[in-house]
């Protein structure tokens, strides 16, 4: 067993892990190591060969591999140590990381700080229990994306997509471009799960039908998929009898949600938030376990990688401070509550002292689509201030700043609540 000691260990070499590691290094903590289970860095980005990445962070439009490469270059420029094809099996609350690969065999790494950046996985057909058979040809959109863009293999040519998450929308266009007939994208909700721009650029531009309030009610075919039955659903999301339609298809792609991949976090006694599926963190993205940080889709599922980068840099800054002994906690902890129409707010707690900062960004999602709304912040029931938004969708994250000055003026408070209210008469 190879035993190592590192100031910071980053688990996951996707966009979150890469940006966090670079930030740790740039803060003067150079003894940082990235552990990545795949054969290359970049996480899911290398298979996202479409454009649309980096508009916020780099102010230019990049493909997934290009976006990843910028950070991979940063990692290489700094000679940050990377272990590829390395699977982390266990993390202990006292920050021992156990991993394996073919070169080193079994590794035990004692870490000053750990940054969890394992990303998320897709919900499966089994998890949503679609009635019918279980033939080949039913796969998650992300798996199909890997086959198509990394392996050069095309799952099939007559495609139905269930769910309008971004990967589903992207794959509708991708398979269409390879010559497949994408017959429909079904979404059980009355609105799409993905970004508006993806609905326009991936479906509308290619005349791919989007069927809202529809779901797949039956899978047919014993060996390979032969057909799916789709149905319209009522307001309780129950299929309406008589609306069934049979569509012949050899492939059903599922884009029905992403689940933060927190099995390792649980082993380290990290407490998770039921609403995000990720850790409960403070504004430094530190979990309840001291010295263990989390960022990216393992913390909460993001809509844009640009926000992942932002969050990873926050985690990287604070992990470096933690290792250097520069992280100080305030006497009191302020709880951030998700109020009306808000499904969650990150961070869940504010408890760190930072004299230099002007504001703390709060990230959130709404529970339901809203037009012309106000994001209201209040402290212990007293309204502080609000921000206007032209619209809000559950598929798109929102961010508002909480000013440090406001916190200083308020003195000791227990909690801050974020409500998002639709403005009347608009």
């Amino acid at each position: 067993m190879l035993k190592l000691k590192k100031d910071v260990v980053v688990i996951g070499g996707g966009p979150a892990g890469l940006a966090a590691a670079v930030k740790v290094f740039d803060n003067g903590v150079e003894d940082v190591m990235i552990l990545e289970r795949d054969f290359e860095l970049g996480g899911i980005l290398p298979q996202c060969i479409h454009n649309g990445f980096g508009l916020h962070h780099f102010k230019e439009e990049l493909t997934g591999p290009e976006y990843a490469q910028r950070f991979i270059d940063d990692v290489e420029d700094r000679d940050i140590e990377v272990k590829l094809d390395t699977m982390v099996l266990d993390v202990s609350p006292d920050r021992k990381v156990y991993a394996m690969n073919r070169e080193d065999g079994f590794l035990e790494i004692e870490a000053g700080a750990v940054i969890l950046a394992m990303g998320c996985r897709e919900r499966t057909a089994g998890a949503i229990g679609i009635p019918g058979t279980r033939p080949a040809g039913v796969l998650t959109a992300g798996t199909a994306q890997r086959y198509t863009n990394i392996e050069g293999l095309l799952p099939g040519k007559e495609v139905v997509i269930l769910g309008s998450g971004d990967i589903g929308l992207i794959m509708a266009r991708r398979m269409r471009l390879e010559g497949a007939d994408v017959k429909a994208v079904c979404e059980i909700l009355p609105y799409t799960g993905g970004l508006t721009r993806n609905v326009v650029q991936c479906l509308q531009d290619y005349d791919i039908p989007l069927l809202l309030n529809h779901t797949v009610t039956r899978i047919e075919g014993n060996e390979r998929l032969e057909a799916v039955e789709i149905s319209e659903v009522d307001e309780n999301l129950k299929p309406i009898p008589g609306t069934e339609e049979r569509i012949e298809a050899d492939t059903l792609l599922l884009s029905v949600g992403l689940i933060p991949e927190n099995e390792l976090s649980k082993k380290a006694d990290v407490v998770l938030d039921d609403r995000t599926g990720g850790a409960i963190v403070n504004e430094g993205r530190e979990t309840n376990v001291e010295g263990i940080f989390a960022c990216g889709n393992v913390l909460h599922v993001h809509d844009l990688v640009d926000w992942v980068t932002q969050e990873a840099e926050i985690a990287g800054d604070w992990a470096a401070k933690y290792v250097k002994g520069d992280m100080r906690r305030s006497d009191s902890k302020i709880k951030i509550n998700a109020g009306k129409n808000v499904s969650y707010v990150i961070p869940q707690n504010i408890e760190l002292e930072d004299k230099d900062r002007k504001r703390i960004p709060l990230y959130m999602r709404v529970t339901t689509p809203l037009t012309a709304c106000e994001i209201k912040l209040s402290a212990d029931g007293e309204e502080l201030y609000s921000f206007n938004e032209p619209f809000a969708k559950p598929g798109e994250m929102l961010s508002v700043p909480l000013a440090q000055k406001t916190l200083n003026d308020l003195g000791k408070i227990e909690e801050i609540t974020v409500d998002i209210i639709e403005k009347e008469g608009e």
Partner: protein
Amino acid sequence: MSNKKYDIIIVGGGVSGCAVAWKLSRYNLNVLLLEKEPDLASGTTKANTAIIHAGYNADPNKLKGRLNVKGNVEIKQIAKDLSIPFKEIGSLVVGVKGDDLSILDELLEKGKKNKVEGLKIVDKEWLRENEPHLTKDAEAALWAPTAGITTPWEFALAMAENAVANGVEIELETEVLDVLTEDGNVVGVKTNRGNFGANYVINAAGLYADDVARMVGIEKIEIRPRKGEYYIYDKAKDFDVNHVIFPIPTPISKGIVVTRTIENNLLIGPTSDPIDDKTDLSTTPEGLEKVYNGAKKLFPDLTLKDTIRVFAGLRAADKTEDFVIEAADNVHGFINVAGIQSPGLSSATAIADMTLDILEDEGLKLEEKKNVIEKREEPVRFYEMSNEERAKMVEKDKKYGKIICRCETVSYKEILDAIHGPIGARTVNAVKRRTRAGAGRCQGGFCGPRVLEILSEELGIDPTEVKQEETNSQIIEYKIKELLGSKVMDNA
């Protein structure tokens, strides 16, 4: 194909066929097992409740009642010899408020007649202590400490692997189309891959046993499939159960069971619905609702949020509702092992013993081999090892260092071993059955493309030829750019 004449051909590689092959492999005989699918144990054997029943429920006047207890007792030694996962966790038949609790006493009496050991009626307090999440309405239960759980496909595969080690031959993707007879004697079978000669043919064809029986003119067997639907839960779930837990049974079904599996997932099901189509393995909204409601009666806190898969299996029930294990009276050398429904898994080895007795009666000479290989080496199961044990394995072979399935911690080496084992895995599901790769919470989302690539490399086949399970279940239909310029593109 082969001009070799076998003593015995077994039709069907489910748990019954594998058990017969295993028992026969100890004698000086040429035995061939034929399976129509690309892997053994891929019919009823792969989709059931995975229970080794204690044997109190089966009718003592039926074969089911006689063979269940025998199989239950035997498996404990066999599990050790062949390294089959088996845990004697015991079962409970739970009576709740409003149930007729006298049925528990009837089951106890029936169990005593079947010679089931250790049966006991336990009270509310016992239940609260030993099964804390069980409904507060539970009044009493019949506790059968000898019941257990296993991994059914590994049970079948282990017997088949040991049979192969002792000289039995196995042909996969070989479907029996006819049974050949001459002058009232069996002489072989006709298959999609040519004819194979044999003096005895054992019909262990599961759901298709009636079709195979008809090939020699036997009409009395009639398989009436009964579907059972199930939910399986993630290992991470709200609570554990400690026993196999049944409600009070009805005349045709043992009801919706709640049990843990060997790997500590939770399994709930099955329904029991007669169907006509032997290939209908579909789950239905009604069936799954029945399963969930049934399970909730025993465990009111159960939700569906941690389920990772639904599935359905078919019981190969004969119209007599009993096993049909007998020699044909119209043709010499043809033996039926049919109607093997629950408790078929529990009875498998006893069914095989009975089959051997019949073969002897029919004139087959059973002469024990010398140097029988008694043991099957335990496969490496990375997922159940401690980190220290894993470290040792990786030191021995670096191929253990690469993890392919993250959910179940399955290494590259284990997958290679599965593909190159005594009965090598040729499909993604065959790899899953041998290693658990793809059986976890992401259901192959991560390891699927990797397993496909390894299969393609190791078998020397194109990725578009790799199957999920059955002969026509290719996962990938085309390569990139193959469709461009095709008719699909024009019509789309």
